[in-house]
Structures are given as C-alpha cells and as structure tokens.
C-alpha cells in the first residue's frame, strides 16, 4: 500500500452504522416509490464507497489500481443499464 496517514476506522464504523439505521427507518416511510428507491440506492452507494475507500484503502492506493477497479465498475454499470434499458425504452 502507498504510504498514508491512518484513517479513523471507528469514525467510519459509526457512519456506516448510522446510515444503516437511517436506511432501515427510511424504508418504512410513506414516500413515492421512485424517491424511496433513489434514496436507498444513494445511501447504499455511500456506504459501499466508504468501505472501498477506507477499509479497502482504495483512497490511498496507486492510481493503477483505481483505473483497474474503475474500469470494472464502468463495465458493471453498462451491464445493468442495458438490462434496465431493455424494459424502459420503447420497442420498435
């Protein structure tokens, strides 16, 4: 790993725990479905990002690793988007 200062892992833990509690509470709220799904995806994405950046130390790694992981994520987004587009876009 590249040299770096130590992140405060307990702070990350408390954030993850708090967001999980907010997530569960939010899932029971009576809000429009797109708002509910959008909010939950955003919260889960935030938590996943924290784990990747701080627990997996991606934030402190060399750029080469970021490029490899980033490329995979782009491929993943394309894969899911094509599937969703299949149902959303009008058929000819």
């Amino acid at each position, binding site marked *: *790993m590249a040299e770096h200062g*130590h992140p405060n*892992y*307990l702070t*990350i*833990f408390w954030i*993850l*725990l708090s967001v*999980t509690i907010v*997530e*569960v509470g939010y*899932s*029971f709220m009576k809000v429009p479905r797109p708002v*509910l*799904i959008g909010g*939950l*995806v955003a*919260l*889960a994405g935030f*938590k*996943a990002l924290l*784990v*990747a950046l*701080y*627990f*997996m130390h991606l934030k402190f*790694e*060399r750029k*080469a*690793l970021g490029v*490899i*992981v980033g490329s*995979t*994520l782009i*491929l*993943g987004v394309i*894969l*899911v988007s094509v*599937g*969703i587009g*299949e*149902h*959303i876009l009008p058929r000819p």
Partner: protein
Amino acid sequence: MSSHAIAHDHALEPPSATGIPHDKMGMWVFLCSEVMFFTGLIGSYIVLRFASPSWPHPGNTLNIWLTALNTFILICSSVTMVKALESVRNGDLGKLKLFLSMTLLGGAIFLSIQAYEYRHLLHAGFNPHVSLFGSVFYTTTGFHGFHVFCGVVCMAFVTGKAFLGKYTQAHHQGVETIGLYWHFVDLVWIILFTIIYLF
C-alpha cells in the same frame, strides 16, 4: 525447500511493474471478476423486478430487523479486520490475533443467523419454487453466503497462521489479502441488503 531458500527466493523476486505486490494485485483482479459476477446477479434481479407486474413487499416475508442485525455484525467484522491489519503493521501481534479471532467469530455469527433465517423461511413455505422473488432471494443471498463461508475458511487459515507466529510487522501480506476479500464481501452485502430487503 528450506526457509532460508524461500526467503532468498523472495529477496530475488522481481519488483512489481505496478508497484503493488503481486499477490495483492492478484486479489484485486479476482475481486474485479467478483464485481462482474455480483453485477450479473444484481442486474438480473433488477431486470426481473422491472419486468414483473407485481412484486411482494420484502418486509411482508423477510425479517428485516434480524437481517439489519446481521448487517451490523458484518460491518463490525470489517472493522475488526481492518484493525487486525493496523495492529500487525504496528507490530502488535497480540492484537492481530485478537482482531482476527473477532473477525472470524463475526463471520461465523453472520452465517449462523443466515442459516437460521433460511430455516425459518423454508419452514414458513417461502422457498425458491414459490415465486420469482423467492428464486432471486435464495440465489443472490445464497451466493453471497457461500462467499462468506469461503471467507471464514480462509480467515480460519490466516488466524491459525497468526497464532503460529507466521506474521511479522515486515511480512504480513496474507493478512492484507484476506482483508481485501473480507471487506469486499461486506461491501456486496451492504448493496444486497438494500436492494433485496428494503425496496
């Protein structure tokens, strides 16, 4: 081969072109393939759900609070894992053993709760044949559970090596490598918990 010869071979090992140790890079490449594997599962779930005219509310079938507790346990095990790595880097081998054991315990508790959940759900008649939701639920959470199981087995191996004094402040790549896998499994669960249990 003697330990002296092995150490000599490590010393002769050519430096990595990327500046990242080979085994760590290997784990990252493996994790990238795992990203695509779980993306396929999650993508299929999303497509099936979009295509279905109706979908049961997960809260009516699944125990969200129990799984939230399981999520909490997995997040805790991720913290103990990263603390184990921090400990060995600081040369505190006692804490390394403690935190690795706690991580192992966290993984075992997670699997036990998942087994309990499956048993309860199957007993209530919710099985993979009953609906599309059931099929998707058992496929995605089952594959994740299998990954946790593999992680627990590898973690037991690494913990055993730690107790045998195989890791030092200078040589502890195995701890970092299993840690990457463990955090990835935690990351995937964070996403699965949201999209399977909370939507």
